[in-house]
């Protein structure tokens, strides 16, 4: 049986450039959570989208707040006494480019967003030093989000691996608000790398936790838990045609009707393969190095099934799994 994904990833609104104040910034030296006052991004964003954040602050604590988005900004006086440029930007040139980070929590009502990231190199290290009260420069929300959970069939399964867990918090909240039955499998190497799992659980969705070493939850891989959930939902006859599960709330017996996954590419490839075998629509969120993040440089391509390339930043980062060739990153 061939699966056709008719459901579409989406873009709700165009992106903006926003100067956002750092509200909280906590970390253990390796994994950090950053909460930002970013009303313009929060208002436009949907789960699965990301921001391009510059790792260097554009204003220090105690300086005046942001000008309204889209308005011309007056020049500011920088700490060295020089007048800054017409549009304030980081004074240093290294790191040069912005870094893509997924939206973990989106709170339009409060005008806030949160991001969870791991320090892996120069950019994330520089970002981790930005103090609360400072201003950071964002482009967002960028990319295509997951499809509208209200329109899908059956129970939604969210799968987050490692730093693929944080975006599942926004996904879980969206699904819960839309009344979609949902369950999450969250996996990491060890308990320490389950960052974002608390934010997912806070939305009230049932969570299955898996770690490679058993330091939290079950010992094993997310695909072990996935096999179990899919197997459990396999009807005896093997006939899944017209098998849309009625909304029965979050009972574990509900058929898994759709999978959204974010995590390391080998994990995504394994999830994609199992979903294809089981005939379950699957959406994956992929990562690439990015220069611009908004479709201009062609630096972030992922091979398209059937030939050619798609842009991760603009056609993705969320793709119907059958549209992309995974395993190249």
């Amino acid at each position, binding site marked *: 049986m061939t699966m056709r994904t008719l459901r579409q990833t989406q873009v709700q609104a165009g992106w903006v450039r926003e100067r956002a104040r750092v509200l909280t910034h906590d970390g253990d030296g390796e994994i950090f959570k950053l909460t930002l006052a970013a009303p313009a991004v929060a208002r436009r964003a949907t789960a699965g989208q990301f921001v391009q954040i510059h790792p260097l602050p554009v204003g220090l604590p105690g300086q005046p707040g942001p000008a309204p988005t889209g308005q011309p900004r007056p020049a500011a006086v920088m700490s060295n006494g020089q007048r800054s*440029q017409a549009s304030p930007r980081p004074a240093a040139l290294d790191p040069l480019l912005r870094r893509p980070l997924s939206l973990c929590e989106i709170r339009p009502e409060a005008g806030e967003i949160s991001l969870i990231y791991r320090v892996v190199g120069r950019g994330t290290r520089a970002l981790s030093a930005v103090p609360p009260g400072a201003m950071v420069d964002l482009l967002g929300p960028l990319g295509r989000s997951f499809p509208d959970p209200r329109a899908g069939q059956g129970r939604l399964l969210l799968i987050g691996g490692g730093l693929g867990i944080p975006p599942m918090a926004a996904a879980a909240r969206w699904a819960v608000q839309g009344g979609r039955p949902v369950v999450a499998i969250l996996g990491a190497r060890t308990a320490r790398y389950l960052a974002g799992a608390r934010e997912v659980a806070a939305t009230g969705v049932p969570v299955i936790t898996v770690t490679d070493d058993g330091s939290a939850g079950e010992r094993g891989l997310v695909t072990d838990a996935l096999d179990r959930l899919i197997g459990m939902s396999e009807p005896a006859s093997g006939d899944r045609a017209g098998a849309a599960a009625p909304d029965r709330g979050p009972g574990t017996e509900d058929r898994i009707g759709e999978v959204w996954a974010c995590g390391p590419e080998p994990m995504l490839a394994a999830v994609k393969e199992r979903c294809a075998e089981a005939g379950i629509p699957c959406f994956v969120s992929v990562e690439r190095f990015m220069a611009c993040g908004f479709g201009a440089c*062609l630096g*972030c391509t992922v091979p398209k099934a059937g030939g050619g390339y798609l842009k991760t930043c603009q056609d993705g980062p969320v793709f119907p799994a059958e549209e992309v060739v995974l395993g190249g990153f």
Partner: protein
Amino acid sequence: MGSESVRPAGGSGGSAPDLSVRLFGRTFKTPVWPASGCFGYGREFAGVMDLSQIGAICVKGTAIEPWDGNPGIRVVETPGGMLNAIGLQNPGVDHFLTVDWPWLQERGATVIVNIVGRTVDEYAAVARRLEGTGVAGLELNISCPNVKEGGMAFGTTPRSAAEVTAAVRRATTLPLIVKLSPNVTDIVEIARAVESAGADGLSVINTLMGMSIDIRRRRPHLGNVFGGLSGPAIKPIALRMVWQVAGAVKVPVIGIGGIMTGEDAVEFLMAGASAVQVGTACFVDPRAPLTIAEELAQFMAEHGYRRVGDLVGAARLRGAL
């Protein structure tokens, strides 16, 4: 911004400096243009800026047929810059003419088409397709590998650079700008060769060949191994080459390489460039071509320059002493 500003030295009163430049028989609103490959075909930027306010948009390198581009990782950041190995992915000139150009025209954009090819004939064919369409000019990217010469870039010898320039010259009446590769022994020799072959202007420079290695995975970062270095890291080299070329040719030079601020643009103009292009800066600040033009105007106002032309080559007079 008042209290800190320095009074214009020329005492030119309140009149705002004139950013327009006249080149190739036409007037451009500003001398700060987005560089090819860093601005797509303009679409991605239309939500944050008015494209008609940009002097000229240099669109992505465009070929006679669509090109797929390179597999694997295509961009990586390096100190003060970035490497790219996009492989000139583009949808082809027919797609440009049926989809992008009408869209750009509706927005009042001035457009220079960067053209690429694998053979001299392919370049000339793209130029012919663009004849009479109303684009403001052609920019020949001669950093492409020449398949008939074993993949060596057209721009690396005076002979092949002149050959491709002459062929396109015969194919077009549009202003013809040739974009020089810095990956050569003597850029002045190439500049003179393409000027003699009929170039109306020179863009200086394209990216510098470089590489970086992912030491954890023990392999080059880029799928293509080598890539083009751009951004502030290349600015001193670009500036030196602009200075050298501007001193050796009569046609206008367009300065490119690592420009992030209005003051960077001033350096290139003072070195002899008649206009500049900004590439990597557009990734950090999508409005960079306008922001940098505003900063340039601010510098001019503060230092009493009324016209862009007053800056062009200004540092050369002292340099000669």
